């Protein structure tokens, strides 16, 4: 997976779509499709930015089969396509080997689509579900979701005199997904493209459901300069704001473990959604967010260490 060679490949999604300049979701799709270049792929897309910008009738940016149903049911729509594939393959009506990839934003995954996703995982459909997570409902104009971090500003939780942005911590979805006992769960960031693409390949090779939560920068919702998508993705990992890791067969591995995490300010200073946190009067809120990030990170470090020790002493783990 050499980047120079990959860049020359004909991709399964073409240019000319209407995603914003500097959109993280476009990078997610592009890298996923490059990682899946050797496979026959059907894409199932939830309602959201990617759906509305890539398929404006009568045009389509997809030169592979693509299907959309609604916001909350991409997992069950995919389950249906995959079930029909099984049925028709068994009856000899389909010869090709086909893989199924879902793209859904955090709104369609963490919140309204969680039930359908849980059902799909529990039933064990052979699907790679990728959540392009920009930490709010961006397509409708930056309303908070269950993935929105503490004190980030959104249009449904604006920064006001009485309420200081989002009042709650973000949901730890990866942990919820892991609890389903599926073979492959991961978090990724597009700045670590080889890591993310390797995860896509692993997810596609997995028998049964696989899930990747990939941080996807949003120029408009986060309020950052359009040339900063990759830099912010990198800073999110370096500050431990968005740790990248994978859980395979019950064992958690951090894919990047900085000796000394960069200060969180390095990540938030370029984003309008966090601008209030840098004012001296909002020091407490900044500290709260830092604590959220640190608590989440420490829990992961502890878990990785614990899993490593367990592996050493128990063959069966």
């Amino acid at each position: 997976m050499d980047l120079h060679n990959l860049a020359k490949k004909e991709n399964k999604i073409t240019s000319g779509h209407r995603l914003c300049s500097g959109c993280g979701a476009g990078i997610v799709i592009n890298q996923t499709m490059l990682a899946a270049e050797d496979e026959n792929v059907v894409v199932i897309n939830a309602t959201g930015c990617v759906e509305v910008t890539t398929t404006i009738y009568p045009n389509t940016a997809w030169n592979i089969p693509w299907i959309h149903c609604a916001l909350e049911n991409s997992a069950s729509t995919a389950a249906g396509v995959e079930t029909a594939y099984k049925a028709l393959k068994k009856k000899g009506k389909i010869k090709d080997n086909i893989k199924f990839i879902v793209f859904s934003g955090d709104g369609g995954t963490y919140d309204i689509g969680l039930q359908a996703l849980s059902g799909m995982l529990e039933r064990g459909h052979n699907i790679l579900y990728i959540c392009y997570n920009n930490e709010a409902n961006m397509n409708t104009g930056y309303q908070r979701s269950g993935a929105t971090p503490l004190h980030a500003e959104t249009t449904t939780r604006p920064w006001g005199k009485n309420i200081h942005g989002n009042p709650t911590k973000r949901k730890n979805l990866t942990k919820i997904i892991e609890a389903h006992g599926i073979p492959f769960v991961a978090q990724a960031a597009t700045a670590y493209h080889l890591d993310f693409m390797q995860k896509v390949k692993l997810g596609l090779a997995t028998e049964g459901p696989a899930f990747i939560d990939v941080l996807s920068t949003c120029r408009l919702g986060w309020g950052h300069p359009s040339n900063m998508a990759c830099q912010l993705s990198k800073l999110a990992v370096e500050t431990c704001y968005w740790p990248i890791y994978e859980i395979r067969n019950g064992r958690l591995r951090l894919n990047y473990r900085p000796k000394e995490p960069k200060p969180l300010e390095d990540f938030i200073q370029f984003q309008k959604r966090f601008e209030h946190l840098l004012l001296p009067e909002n020091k407490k809120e900044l500290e709260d967010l830092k604590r959220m990030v640190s608590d989440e990170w420490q829990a992961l470090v502890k878990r990785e260490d614990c899993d490593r020790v367990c592996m050493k002493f128990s063959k069966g783990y």
Partner: protein
Amino acid sequence: MKRLALTGNEAMAYAMKQSKPDVFCGYPITPTTDILVTLAKYIANGELDCEFVTAESEHSVASILYGASSAGARCFTCTASQGLALMHEVLHIISGARLPIIIGSSSRSLSSPINVHGDHADFMDMRDTSFIQIFSENAQDSYDNFLQGVRIAEEARLPAIISSDGFITSHNLEAVEVLKDEIAYKFIGDYKTPFSILDIKNPITINPLSLPNSFMEIKKSQADAMRQAKKVIPKVALEYEKISGRQYGFFREYCLDDAKVAIVVLGSTAETAQLVIDELRNKGIKAGILALRVFRPFPAKEIMAALSNCKVVCILDRADAYSSLGGPLFVEVASALYKSKSRPILLSRIYGLGGREIDEEMIKNIFEEIIKINKGQKLNEFGYIGLKK
């Protein structure tokens, strides 16, 4: 032809088995659960080769079938009431994408208050979803209508719902004549899809974003499909008559030819009313019944022709539309008769909500009212049957 003792639900499950679906997906709900568990048994015993998905909700059932049908699979489910209401969003998406998914149902009331018994609230709730809607009077109808429904839906390329009265038909054991498996399947035939999301060599984009410059034409073609379905239904009925000997139209007429007073009714109540008609006819009263079978597409012209010689017609609704305009069936029949030169006087009566009993006595009372109106007496246009004081 074999005669089996089957409930309405079992009769429908039997027709489903003979139609050989590729994918069946369901979620339990009273009073249709028996269809689901009967199918599960067929599959477990190897009587039916079909992928069976037990979804976590009806919303997902509809979504799974949407995905599976887009892949060219023949897809069935069963549901009613809250389950059908939970599917509602996806029902529109299914019909918009022109996917011939077929729902076997036994109609039940809608909450609140919660009530598990039969009425037509769920069936009427999906009036505008662009599903072909067929209602059965008894278990035999359930079987026959389902088989025909598969053919109609797949030829018209619209989804369909085949329903009957919850509990009254769904749970009553009746003698049902079933076709031999080979004859039934020869009638149904293999499902041929015009497109598939699994066609890797000819990739397509399904359910894209359509803006104001394209949306109306797509929706108009969907309305055309429903108009086209009206031509498909009698054609399929004729073919079915040839193999079964049973005749089906948009509706069934009972003593309607020369009737001066009549009722319009959907479902099992038609059979109860028949006994009343026999009694009235013995007394020399020209009474009749129009028992509607096909609700969507609505056979307006045919209804107008059938009722135009009547003086007074009462439309019985087992659901309310809460529009202050009478029951939903009443409104449709009234608009069907608008162009009639000899419009009968129309009455709307709502009955049987939440499984409230309807018997011959009540229907006799209705005819007494109708006859009084025919003699010039003024009575309320809107009313209820069997309402406690």
